[in-house]
């Protein structure tokens, strides 16, 4: 029990630490990868809390997601290497107050909510995986499928909007036609 609490605390602090690094560096790639490791630490917290499937899933998903975010940063930001020492924060007053309010709310929920009796023995990992699968393909199926299709549609739409219109020119090459000025 104490060992578990210790590891949850260690990974939690690591998650916060990497989260701070996200804003303390001026390199976009470092920032993205710091966010990645922050999320990985959250995944490790799941593992420490004996939710194996969620933890492993979190660790897996974040690696690719954040790497893809990193390449978008490199493509769209003007100083991805942070050689110009860019400041990562902006709208300071607003963001500080928003952070304080959100943090306070989270702590309040954690302390004030009625969490019910503490589970003495968590079901083993195999049972959890099974229960999760039945939940996903039973009661929650409609919600998850709707969300999945919506995300897919959004991705296809975003890609379609982002691709310029190509027209085949006479000499066999492709030329870009400006869609808007």
């Amino acid at each position, binding site marked *: 029990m104490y060992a578990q609490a210790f590891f949850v605390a260690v990974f939690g602090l690591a998650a916060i630490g990497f989260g701070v690094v996200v804003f303390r560096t001026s390199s976009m790639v470092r920032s993205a990868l710091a966010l990645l490791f922050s999320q990985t630490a959250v995944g490790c917290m799941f593992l420490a809390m004996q939710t194996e499937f969620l933890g*492993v899933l979190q660790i897996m998903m974040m690696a690719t997601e954040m790497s893809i975010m990193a390449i978008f940063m490199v493509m769209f930001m003007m100083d991805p290497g942070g050689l110009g020492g860019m400041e990562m924060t902006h709208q300071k007053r607003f963001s500080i107050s928003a952070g304080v309010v959100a943090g306070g709310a989270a702590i309040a929920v954690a302390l004030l909510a009625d969490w019910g009796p503490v589970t003495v023995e968590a079901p083993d*990992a195999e049972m959890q995986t099974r229960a999760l699968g039945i939940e996903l393909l039973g009661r929650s199926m409609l919600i998850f499928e709707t969300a999945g299709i919506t995300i897919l549609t959004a991705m296809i739409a975003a890609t379609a909007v982002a691709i310029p219109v190509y027209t085949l020119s006479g000499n066999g090459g492709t030329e870009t036609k400006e869609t808007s000025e």
Partner: protein
Amino acid sequence: MNFVIVLLALLGSVWLLAVVEGWTTTGRLRPAAPLLSGLAHLGRESIVPRTPDRVFFETAPVLLLIVAVLGAAVLPLAPTLVIADLATGALFINAALAYVLVALIMAGWGPNGAYAMIGGWRFLGQLIAYAMLIVMPITAVAMRAESLVTTVIVGSQDGLWNIVYQPLGFVLFFIAAMALAFRAPFDLPTAPGELGGGVDAEYTGVRLGVLRLARLTLVITLASATTVFYLGGWHGPLLPPWAWSLIKTLAVAVSMLLAGRYLPRIREADLMRWCWTLGIPLALLNIIVVGLLVLVVP
């Protein structure tokens, strides 16, 4: 104890693979060569390029080695010979190997060199191509075993190996595993003829030694995964279970090595196109076929 045994088996396999690799490229069988060149790496100057991203540069080779070993940790050599028999083993190996990408992006970005950087980002494109072909065949394997536990997956192949039960899945997984291990003909991030070594280009000395060890370990891990998922793991007559696991793993690793010798490097665009227009529909078909088999055949 298991930890030590599996680690030694991994190291031994890496050594054998390195010997075979030397044999195919130089035509001479020199068992001591991997050790000697490893020692030579230790003795050489390990140059740090100008204005590197030092954290990434130093972390990348070590991270690659760690994820390869972590991936191997859930793969059983024998019914009880496994470091961690996780309830989510088949998912965990995906999670571990996803960090190959992170390591390569770090190795590409860290040294502040054009060849390395292009190599690193190229691998991100490669991931978009192969990732689904790793995950979807494993899904079909887990469907047959009705479990994500790797030992149960091997157990489910008692009598009929998955290579026979789902040959399509095996072919897709084998190709995708080669792409994940960035072996020729999928060596786009290193591509000696195009990028002069790519992500390897700026590494020297002991760092290069670690990187090479990590790459070979990754190949062994993936060969071991192929064995566990498709070749019946430790099943086989006469010999003890661990011996069968090792023999099959090495056979898969060597075949991955040899395939690259006889093929030119694939074009990035072709890899992407074939994986998405041909590979993913086939992987879906594989899932459907296996699903029907699981339902129909008792």
